[in-house]
Structures are given as C-alpha cells and as structure tokens.
C-alpha cells in the first residue's frame, strides 16, 4: 500500500492504481481538513451562533 512496503513496485500498475487511490484520498482528506478547519475558524469568529 505504501511505497516503503517491500511489496511495492514502481511499475505502471502501481502508478495507475495507487495514483488514483491517493488522489481520491487526498481530496477527501484535504476537503475534510478544510471543512473542519474553516468550521473552527468560523466558530471562533462567532459565526453560526446557536439560535437563528
């Protein structure tokens, strides 16, 4: 799964497969980081207070 694993190979199959995989994971990860991060900032800035 990881390039440091001994089963890893630098060949086309791995590029394509893991390329796609890590790309998707990156988007999910970055997206969520963004959402959570921004939510923290928003909250500190006092947005979205309880009752509206």
């Amino acid at each position, binding site marked *: 799964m990881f390039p440091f694993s001994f089963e890893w190979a630098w060949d086309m*199959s791995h590029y394509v*497969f893991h390329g796609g995989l890590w790309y998707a994971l990156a*988007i999910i990860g970055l997206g969520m980081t963004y*959402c959570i991060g921004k*939510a923290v900032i928003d909250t500190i800035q006092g947005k979205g207070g309880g009752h509206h």
Partner: protein
Amino acid sequence: MDDSALIPKGVKRCPFRQFALWIGIAGIVLLWGVYAMFLCWFKGLNQTNMNDAYGFALWIWADLAVIAVGGGAFFSGFLRYLVGKDELKNIINYAVLIGFICYSSALLILAIDVGQPLRAWFIFWHANVHSMLTEVAFCLSCYFAVLTIEYIPLILENRQINKVPFFHNLAHNMHEIMAIFAATGAFLSFFHQGSLGGVAGVLFGRPFSYREGVLIWPWAFFLFTWSAAAYGPCFTILITKITEVITGKKLVKDNVIELLAKISGWMIITYTAAKLIDTIYWAAVTAPSMGFTIDHFFGTSIYGIWILGAELILGGIAPGLILISEKGRKSPFGLWVAVIFGVIGVSLNRWVMVLQTMAVPVLPFEEWYLYIPSWQEVATTVLPVAYGVILIMISYRYMPIFPQEQELNPID
C-alpha cells in the same frame, strides 16, 4: 418520553411509543442477524452452507446487489452536482442515506464473509493492484468515506446538534464543497461498481462470467457501472415511494421523481441494449472459443435459461420502456411496476454473475452444484435490512431528509 425537541421544525412525526415499538421490532430482527454474525465469527464459516464450489454465494450476491441499488447515491449526486440537475436536491438527501445504508451493509457483510476477519486489513496493507477485489475494497472504503461525509451534514442539521456553532459551521462548510466530494464519489463509484463486474468478468477460468474487454477491464466492468447508474435511481425511487406509503405523506414532488425516473429509464434502455450485444457476443464468440455452448451454461430449474430472459426482458426492456414513456412513469402503477422490476432485474443480474458463475460445471466431469443458504447466512443477510430500516426511521424522524416535506405536508 418526549423527543419533540429533536424533531425537525414544521413536520409531524408519529408518537414516540409507536416509533419505539417499530424500532424494537426491527431491533429483534437485527439482533437475530447479529447473533448469526457472531456465530460466523467465533465458529467460522462452517456455519454457512457455502462450500468449495460455492466460495461466493448469498453474501457476495447481497453485497453486489446492495451496492448496485445503492448506486442511486452516486448517480443522483453526479446528476445534481456535476450535470446540474438542480431539482434533484429534493431527493439527494434520501439517496445519500440509502447509499450510506447500502454501503455500510456491504462492508459489514464482507467482514463476515472473509475467513479471517482480523486479517481483513491485509487487503489494504498487502494490496495486489492486479486484483479487481483490491480495487473494490479500496474504492468501496473510500466511497463509503465519501458517503459518510455526505451523510454527516444531515446529522448535523438535526435541530439540537445544529445549535452548536461548530457543528453548524461544519455542516455549512461541507455543503459548500459538496460538489467536490460528489465528484470524487462519482469517480470512485465508477471504478468500484465496475470492478465488481470486473470481479466476475476477469475470471477466465469461468467461461460463464468471463468477458473480453479493453485494457484490464472486461466488458462486465462497464456494464456494472452502467447498470448501477441505471437501476440505483430505481431503488431510490422505490424506497422513497415505500416511505411515502408507510408515512402516509407525500415527501418528494412528482416532477423530481419523474425526472429521476426518466433518466433511469434511458439508462436502463441503453444498458439493456449493451447487455444484449454483450450476451450475443459472449454466446457466439467468447464462450465457444473456450469450448462451451450456451446450453452448457443453463441447467434446469433455478439455473435455467429463463433467468436470462427474465433479466433482459422483465428486468431490462420492460422497466426501461415504462420509464422512458411519459405516460408510463406518470402512472403510479407504471412507476411502481417499473422500479420494482428494475430492482429485481439488477439483483437478478448480480445473482447470475455470482451464483450461476459458481454453479456452471467447467470441468467436463463435474455436475451442476446446488446450494441452499443456511439460516445463519439468511439472518446475516436480513440484518442489513433491519439495520437500514432502523437507520431510515431514525434519520427520517430526527433529520430534515426531505426538503419538500414541509411544503407538501403543512401543519395546520
């Protein structure tokens, strides 16, 4: 107990006791399934009626089927966020919820199905990138993460949770970039739906399911993606309609349903055409080159040729035609028939790709293998249904799943 503080504003829900009663009933079924699940985990897969000829059986079928019908989530998301069919926002929440249930069920079933669940993570850690199943596992898990991300804002929109500023903001932000998640989800879904077809399609030792294709992908790969996109919405519509019947309320406007139905219809028609071509090519070219004729593949009774006809005509042409005709999809009866046939049709396709593949004798001195699932298999397969019912009940009760509900069912 009064849970009115948790119920969304402007909608009416049944009394809590009634709710609890039904949860309880579903819960009993769930517990039965959980019991069977633990039996399988602690005693091993000898609890099932699977055998060396049927290494894949009811569970894998259930897996493929729920994922196929759960395809409504990605395809509605795809249509809503990427194609821009804005009306679908009124059904997308429910599509996401159904998808979430389907995919979590699929993962659960897989966790029971493997012989060594404590080592199941090897599929990731020691991934063989050449295996369709690896692709399934990765995309399935990633897509499940996406579905979770899509489902979370719904939870956060619960009246009480939404009061917490952080959660409110989080939900808001997630909505903001939902298109990106949806796009990722569509990308992942394309691959894992396909690779589920690939799972069977690459088996060159099993001429029944083997298909030629492009690059590493057999035709079954594309047919699976296509069929999931085609029939997933049928299932979304079906569950929505059932929910409407049970709640006694109209929850989604007809134009939304009809739009989805129409798209589904065209997808089904094109899929069926493709499937027909695939079937003919397979019967005329692929199989004979491996020494098989079509009558080799269909035995008597439950594995008879009727299954192919049923899949293509009843599960393909019939619902397709109904849904593409305006009259058909607008008639409540026509819609019901179409979505039910559609869902059965795609489930039948998955059944055939799993069970028939296993049953067809390949070695010249073999016989047709029959298999009847054990109660443990049935219970664990029913488990997700109970779990889905419970999750839908809870979600419907406490979360604003249907944006049009208030409008369609004004209180006072």
